[in-house]
């Protein structure tokens, strides 16, 4: 019972801190606006909806373990400020020799673990350029955990030559009790008709469950976004609890504007 409470406390703390950061940062620059200024047509459902399909993949390698992941996400807009999404991800996890199963400690070492994660939730566009995703789901395969996740992304100083993005992603695993949080801050170095180039730094920290205190890692990263194909990617390297690590992520977005309803002639 105590463990469950600790897990819940850790999850709530992580999500609240992330949400507060996402809200507080842009709020400081929008303090002079009223609700109607910030959210015109808040309850209006637009005639033309949008379906966004995002495919993604990536990998992480360190001295102690490595993962790859791949999946896709479907998001349907409801209003200008709210969308609903579903995400399906496949994970492959390679453990270092002599280590226990991190998904379910106490069940012994396995060279490779494969599991999938299905989750769904809401995308809230709480400020212009700021999105907050909340979702919940369940693992299948070698993991059977229930997970809750909170993700956020906020573009600051959008009307400048070098806007800054702050993003975080926090997921709590109810099987091993660990809350994993990734944070990142990047600035746009160059914007052209074709591409965006960004650089910054980020990392991840882990707490709760079998982790005593907090573990983590961090390092500089470099990102790009190719506008014509809506393809983005990021590469990061650094050092942390798992010693040297490298991380690569990429994604492809596809926006489908749904046809507006025909009006009677």
């Amino acid at each position, binding site marked *: 019972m105590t463990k469950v409470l600790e897990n819940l406390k850790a999850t709530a703390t992580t999500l609240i801190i992330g949400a507060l950061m996402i809200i507080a940062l842009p709020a400081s620059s929008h303090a002079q606006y009223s609700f109607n200024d910030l959210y015109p047509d808040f309850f209006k459902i637009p005639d033309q909806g949008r379906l966004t399909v995002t495919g993604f993949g990536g990998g992480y390698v360190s001295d102690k373990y490595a993962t790859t992941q791949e999946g896709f996400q479907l998001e349907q807009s409801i209003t200008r400020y709210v969308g609903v999404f579903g995400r399906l991800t496949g994970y492959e996890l390679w453990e270092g020799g002599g*280590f226990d199963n991190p998904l379910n400690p106490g069940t012994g070492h396995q060279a490779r673990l494969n599991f999938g994660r299905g989750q769904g939730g809401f995308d809230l566009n709480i400020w212009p350029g700021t999105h907050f995703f909340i979702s919940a789901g369940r693992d299948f395969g070698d993991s059977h955990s229930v997970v809750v996740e909170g993700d956020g992304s906020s573009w600051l100083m959008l009307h400048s030559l070098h806007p800054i*993005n702050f993003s975080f992603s926090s997921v709590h695993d109810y099987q091993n009790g660990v809350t994993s949080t990734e944070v990142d801050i990047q600035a746009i170095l*160059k*914007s052209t008709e074709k591409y965006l180039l960004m650089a910054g730094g980020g990392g991840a920290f882990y707490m709760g469950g079998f982790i005593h205190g907090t573990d983590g890692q961090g390092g500089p990263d470099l990102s790009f976004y190719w506008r014509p194909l809506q393809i983005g990617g990021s590469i990061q390297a650094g050092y942390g609890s798992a010693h040297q690590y490298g991380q690569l992520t990429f994604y492809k977005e596809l926006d489908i504007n749904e046809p507006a309803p025909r009006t009677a002639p």
Partner: protein
Amino acid sequence: MRARSDGRDGMRLKLFWPLLAVLFYFALTTAAMAQAPMAGSISSASGAVQIQRASGLIAATSGTPVNIGDRIITGAGGHAVITLTDGSQLEVGESSNMTIDNHVLAPAGGRAETKVSLFGGVLRSVVSATGGTPNFEVHTPNAVAAVRGTRWDTAYTEGESRPTYGDCHKFSDVVVYEGVVTLRNNNAPNGIDVPAGYEATVPCDVQSTLPGPIGMTGARGLGTAASAVGSNPSPVVGGVPPPACPVCPPMPATTPPPLPAPPPST
């Protein structure tokens, strides 16, 4: 002698009427050209595209001349490309309404001045790089975009709401792909330079916003939805963190798991 004179008179009489007809034709066409000099022609048109001029409304097809003063109107799904006489191109998006107010070539064939007004919709301008420094302006009801570059979109929308703009419901957007465009409000003496890769907006009667990267500030360009709050790229989506447990607890290799306690003896 008299017979020769009669022959000459007859010849003159025969030449008189064709000559008069030719002169009349030239006079008419010159007068017409003086009223509405040709600015260019339609290179391609699809969907509902019409040209409104003094003589009435005509359907625009490929090759249709476009004169100074003509109003080009596209309906839903309509799209047209106008090639001006200096090689510059105007690409008119759907549901747009624009006029070519002025287009004067310099004597050497270069561009002296081009002025276009956009009353609604989206217009992409691809300005010919030949002919010296461009003097090319797109006017909207609340803004002027003056080009020192070669390719950019201008959009004007009325009646829509955008976050953080309060009660303002009319916006002029500029999206620059090549070169630099100076954007200013109609009443402002100086503008703001928008470089390639960036976009800016003139909301109502206030000065232009500072430029922000293309697709991220909510500005509208050719092919982008109006009032979309830009957020691309979205690092979170797809940037899934690795699974938990960077450091897994080592297996107790030498310590066997504790045996279950024996049942209590009765």
